[in-house]
C-alpha cells in the first residue's frame, strides 16, 4: 500500500505540474473515445463516420469546455439517426429536447455523466457510473445518470428497430414513428435501469455524506445492494430481459472500480479520528477530523498493513545510530589529547539520540530567535529612518518651491505598508459592495 500511495503522490505531482497540457489531452482522448464509439456502433451516415472527422472533432473539443463533447455527440447521433430515416431523427430530437429543457437545468455541470453512462454500458460495466457519481458527485447527478441510461437504451432500441423495419419492409412514415415512440415509451428495461441508477446515486450520495466511520465503504455496499434489489424487483414486475448473473458480476466489478476511486479520492485513516469541540461568538462546533493517509504522513500510520516491517526497520536504524554514537566522542577525545596542555575534561557523556536532537533543536531555536530579534530591530530602525527621511522631505518641500527631482522609494517597508493600505481600501470597497447587494 505504501508503494501505491507513493506512486499516487508522484502521479498527482506530475498532473499538477503538467496540468496545462494534460487537461486538453484528457479531453481529446475522451472525445475520441466517444466519437469513435458512436461511429462504430451507430455510424449509419457513412460520410461522417470516418476517423479523420472524429479526429478533427476531437481536436476541436480538446480546447472547448466539457459540455462541447456532449453537444457534438448529440449532433452526431442525430445525423446518424437521420441517415436511417427522418422518423428516427425526429424521435431522437424529441428525447434530447425533453432532456435539455426539463432536466439539465438541475445539474448543468454533470452533463459528463450523460456521455459516460452509455460508454460504460458498452464496456459492460454500467454499474460503475451510478456508484462513482454518488460518491464524487451530488444529488443532481441522479438526473444526469438517468438521462445517460435513457440515451443508451434509446440508441440501442433504434438499432434494433432499424433491423426490424428492414425485415418487415415497412415504409409508411407515420406507422414507423408510432411504432418507435410506443416501443421507447414501453421499453421496460430502460425504465427499470434508469430508475435503479437514479436510486443508487441518491442512496450512495446520502450515505457517504453521513458522519459515520467508513461512510464511503458502507455507501458503496448499500448502493450495490440497492441496485441489485431494485433491478431484480423490476425484472420480476415488468419481465425485463436483464441477466441476473451479469447484474451480480457487474456489481462486484463496479465495487472494485469504486474501491480504486475511493483510494484515489478519499483515502483516510479512521483509527486516528479526532473529535473536538469548541465555540466562537456565533456557534458551537462539534468537529470530527479524520486524517488523510498520504505518502507524507505514512510514517505515523501504524495501522497500515506494512506497519510492523516499518517499525522493525526503524528499530534497526535506531540501534545503528546508538552504535555509531560512542565513536564520535572517542574521536573528539583523541583530538583533545593531541592539543598541547589541553585541560582534562570529563569524558563526554553519552546521551540518547533523542536528547541530543532536543538539544540541537533548542540551539537552533535560540539561534533563530536571536536572528528574528535582530531582524525586528533592523526593521524598526529602517522604519524610523524612513519616517525621518519623509519628514525631512516634507519640510524641504514646504520650504522650497515644488522640487522636480524624483524621489525614489528606497525603503521596501514603506512600499509594503502602502500596498497594504491599498489592499485594505480595496477590501473595504468590496465589503460595502457586498453589503449593498
Amino acid at each position, binding site marked *: 500500500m505504501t508503494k501505491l500511495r507513493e506512486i499516487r503522490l508522484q502521479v498527482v505531482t506530475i498532473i499538477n505540474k503538467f496540468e496545462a497540457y494534460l487537461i486538453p489531452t484528457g479531453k481529446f482522448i475522451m472525445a475520441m473515445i466517444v466519437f469513435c464509439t458512436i461511429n462504430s456502433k451507430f455510424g449509419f451516415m457513412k460520410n461522417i463516420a470516418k476517423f479523420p472527422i472524429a479526429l478533427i472533432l476531437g481536436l476541436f473539443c480538446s480546447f472547448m469546455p466539457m459540455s462541447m463533447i456532449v453537444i457534438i455527440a448529440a449532433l452526431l447521433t442525430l445525423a446518424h439517426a437521420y441517415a436511417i430515416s427522418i422518423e428516427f431523427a*425526429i424521435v431522437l430530437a*424529441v428525447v434530447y*429536447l*425533453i432532456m435539455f*429543457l*426539463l432536466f439539465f*437545468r*438541475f445539474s448543468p455541470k454533470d452533463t459528463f455523466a450523460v456521455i459516460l453512462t452509455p460508454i460504460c454500458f458498452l464496456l459492460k460495466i454500467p454499474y460503475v457510473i451510478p456508484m462513482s457519481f454518488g460518491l464524487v458527485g451530488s444529488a*443532481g447527478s441522479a438526473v444526469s445518470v438517468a438521462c445517460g441510461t435513457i440515451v443508451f437504451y434509446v440508441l440501442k432500441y433504434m438499432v434494433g428497430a432499424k433491423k426490424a423495419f428492414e425485415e418487415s419492409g415497412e415504409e409508411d412514415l*407515420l406507422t414507423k*414513428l*408510432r411504432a418507435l*415512440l410506443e416501443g421507447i415509451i414501453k421499453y421496460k428495461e430502460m425504465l427499470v435501469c434508469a430508475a435503479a441508477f437514479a436510486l443508487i446515486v441518491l442512496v450512495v450520495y446520502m450515505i457517504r455524506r453521513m458522519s459515520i466511520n467508513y461512510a464511503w465503504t458502507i455507501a458503496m455496499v448499500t448502493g450495490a445492494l440497492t441496485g441489485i434489489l431494485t433491478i431484480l424487483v423490476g425484472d420480476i414486475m415488468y419481465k425485463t430481459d436483464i441477466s441476473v448473473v451479469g447484474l451480480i458480476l457487474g456489481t462486484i466489478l463496479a465495487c472494485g472500480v469504486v474501491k480504486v476511486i475511493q483510494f484515489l479520492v478519499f483515502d483516510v485513516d479512521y483509527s486516528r479520528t479526532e473529535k473536538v469541540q469548541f465555540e466562537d461568538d456565533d456557534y458551537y462546533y462539534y468537529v470530527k477530523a479524520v486524517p488523510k493517509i498520504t505518502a507524507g504522513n505514512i510514517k505515523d500510520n501504524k495501522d497500515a498493513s506494512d506497519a510492523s516491517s516499518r517499525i522493525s526497520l526503524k528499530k534497526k536504524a535506531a540501534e545503528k545510530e546508538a552504535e555509531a554514537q560512542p565513536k564520535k566522542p572517542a574521536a573528539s577525545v583523541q583530538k583533545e589529547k593531541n592539543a598541547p596542555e589541553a585541560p582534562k575534561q570529563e569524558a563526554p557523556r553519552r546521551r540518547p539520540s533523542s536528547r541530543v536532537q532536543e538539544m540541537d533543536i533548542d540551539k537552533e531555536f535560540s539561534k533563530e530567535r536571536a536572528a*528574528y530579534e535582530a531582524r525586528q530591530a533592523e526593521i524598526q530602525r529602517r522604519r524610523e529612518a524612513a519616517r525621518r527621511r519623509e519628514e525631512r522631505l516634507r519640510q524641504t518641500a514646504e520650504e522650497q518651491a515644488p522640487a522636480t527631482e524624483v524621489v525614489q522609494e528606497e525603503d521596501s517597508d514603506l512600499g509594503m*505598508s*502602502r500596498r*497594504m*493600505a491599498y*489592499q*485594505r*481600501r480595496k*477590501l*473595504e470597497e*468590496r*465589503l460595502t459592495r*457586498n*453589503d449593498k*447587494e
Partner: protein
Amino acid sequence: MINDERKKKIRLMTRIAIYEKTEGKKNEPVARYFRSDYIGLKILGAIISATLVFLTVIGLYVVCNSETLLADFYRIDLLEEARKLILYYIGFVVVYVSIVAVVFFVKYNKAVKYKRIFSRNLKKLLSHYGKKEDFEEEDDDD
C-alpha cells in the same frame, strides 16, 4: 518569523481566495439576486420549458394519431378534449415548477449562507488591518 496576528490574517486571506476561486464562482451569480427574484426567474424558465415540452409531446401525439383523429374529427367532443388537455397541462406544469422551486430554493439558501460566511471573513480581515496603526497613518497620508 510570522506572528500569530499575521498567521490569522494569512489564513483568512487564503480562505477568502479559495472561496472566490471555487464556490464563489458558482454562488456569486446566485446570491446577487433577491430570493424572490431568483426563484421567480427560475420558475418562469421552468414554465416556458414545460410548455415547450408539453407542446412537443402533444404535437407528436397528434402526428402519430393523425389518421384516427381525422376520421373521428366530427365525433370528438372538442370542448371536453380541450378541457382535459388544459388540465393535463396545468398538472404537468405545477408538478415540474414545484420541483424546480424546491431545488432552486435550496440552492439559493446555500449560496447565501456561503456568501454570509465570506462576508464575515472579509470583515474579520478588515478588523485585522484596522488594528495596525501604521496602516491607519498611511491611509491618512494617501
